[in-house]
């Protein structure tokens, strides 16, 4: 079987969908956040495979940006979640509804 661009893209799309599913089904903030990282990485996979098959290295540059940004985001995000956990002793989304309507 010849693995082509489409295969990579399908995998990337599946990863994206998986991450999305995780975000909308899991209740734990940490897990949701992990799923989001998965989605970012699916984009990375798509970029890298496009870069490889189109013979254009620019995409891989973008991937580095994304990884860096993701790292920063995780740093801030986890700190935030931890701060909230300290306050409320919970990381579940149901407990995060003091503001609504």
């Amino acid at each position, binding site marked *: 079987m010849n693995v082509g661009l489409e295969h990579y893209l399908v995998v990337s799309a599946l990863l994206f969908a998986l991450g*999305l599913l995780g*975000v*909308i*089904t899991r*209740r734990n*903030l940490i897990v*949701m956040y992990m799923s989001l990282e998965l989605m970012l990485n699916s984009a990375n996979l798509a970029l890298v495979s496009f870069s490889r098959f189109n013979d254009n290295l620019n995409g891989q540059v973008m991937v580095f940006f994304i990884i860096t940004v993701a790292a920063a985001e995780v740093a801030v995000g986890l700190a935030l979640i931890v701060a909230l956990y300290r306050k409320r002793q919970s990381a579940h*989304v*149901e407990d*995060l*509804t*003091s*503001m*609504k*309507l």
Partner: protein
Amino acid sequence: MKLEALPWILLFLPLCAAGIITLFTLRSQKLSAGLSIGAIVSGFVLAIALIKSGGWEAREFSLNWLSIGNLNVDFGLRLDALSLMMLLIVTGVGSVIHIYSYGYMHEDEGFSRFFACLSLFTFSMLGIVLANNFLQLFIFWELVGVSSYLLIGFWFDKASAADASKKAFLTNRIGDFGFMLGILTVFAVVGSLNFAVIQEQFKANPALMGGSATLAGLLIFCGAMGKSAQFPLHVWLPDAMEGPTPVSALIHAATMVAAGVYMLCRVVFLFTPEALTVISWIGGFTALLAALIAVQQNDIKRILAYSTLSQLGYMVMAVGLGGAGAAMFHLTTHAFFKALLFLGAGSVIHAMHHEQDIWKMGALRKKMPVTFWTFLVGTLALCGVPPFSGFYSKDAILAQAWHAHNYPLFVIAVSVAVLTAFYMFRLFFVVWVGDVRSAEAGHAHESPGVMIWPLRALVVLALFGGVLGINEIFAAQFSAAEHAEASEHGLTLLQRIAEPFTNAPVAAGIGIIATLIGFLTARGLYATAKSDPLTSKLGWMSRAMANRFYFDEIYEATVIRIHDLAGTISNWIDSWIIEGLCIGVVRGGTDLTGRALRLVQTGNLQTYAFLFVLGVAVVLWLTLGK
């Protein structure tokens, strides 16, 4: 002073008086009365001066008041025999009544206001008389209405007076509604509002209006029906007696109610034969109806009011029969003797401390001799006893009916004459003769000189008004329309006295007999009566008459109720359908949508994320899902 200025001064003097009284002299009774009386007396003098200087020739003075496109309205004064004679009546009788009021209203706290209103009324009435076009006539027509409103409601803190004034104004307005439409109809065809222009156009082309002529005539007649209180708009006049008695004399006997008849005479050229027939029958019917009602009234002023109604019906009938001159003649004499009667009644009421029930009076003859004699003259004049003025004018009308071969109306007119004599002598016997029936009647005494002298002045007119040649002046005015009496210009006094018998002896004879019948019946029944013997004799008929044939109730049940219903329905629709349903539903619906929509904002991240993704899906479907 230039001659052109005279009529303007004549017209505006009372207005100035009214304005000055309202603005400055409300506190000073003497000054107010002086201004008001001065204005009308000088008006009388000016009117005489006008006649002296220009005779009875027709002439006009006018300024342009409003001009938009083809709508040209002048503010004009038309002087001719009709208006000059009317000027004399209004200012002459008016002067007398003004002076009388000075005595009658002396103790009233609204004294100055009363004279302001009187002057306003005089101004409006003079405006009607002098108007040279329809719109101006309408303007003063309305002003007369409002001054009558103010005067009827003079004692506005009395609920009945306030209600009566309202009723009078509204009833008049119904007539004005027709009048306005009539004016519009005429203007739409003729393109002018000026009487002279319209008359000329009609002369040139009698079929000018085509099919709408009768309608237009009747619509205009509606105005007269309101103001001259013709059936079915007659209901306001008896109630209008809530006003002070001088007002009843001036407005609701001598002048204002005559305005309708005056207006009919002014535009008599407009009416088609069909319209005239309707007019004559309405007049005749009103005359009969009012006379019948008068028979069973017990309030002295109301009896006179119904009598006024009845006489106005006479005049309208005369116009309808083609006798505008006769109508105006009767209008003139009626102004004299009816004012006299009202002022006499006022004197009685004054003496009786505002007691108006005739069955509480009696034997006043000795207590108030001057009033008694003057009242007697008025009664005789009204009943048409020769040689009093009423005889001549009433005979002119009877003769008109006779000449027109309209025998049904002639019969009506004669029966009215019988009834008139009957109810007037009923009043006469009950009030002046018989026994003293109440304490007030016992203590009554003669009124002061300022009230007595006007009575004396009017007596003269009521006595001799019929033989002064007034009818000839009017006849000359209408000679274009009626050829009958054109030749009789310049009769001697003797000829005038005998004129009814030479002109239509049958009518004159029947008239005298009718009066006699009425007198004898009344004497038989009332000369010594303690209470009304007719009430039991007539049974339900009497009740119906006393209740004025239930006209007020009929109106209550129809016109008023319908408007009330329309008001209720509209108000209901307004507050429930428009305000409640339409606005409420939109308002509530929006609010509910908002409340429902924001339920989406659960505060739960999961929901938000889910909706986010759903949103993406929808957007994708929108852009790619084709």
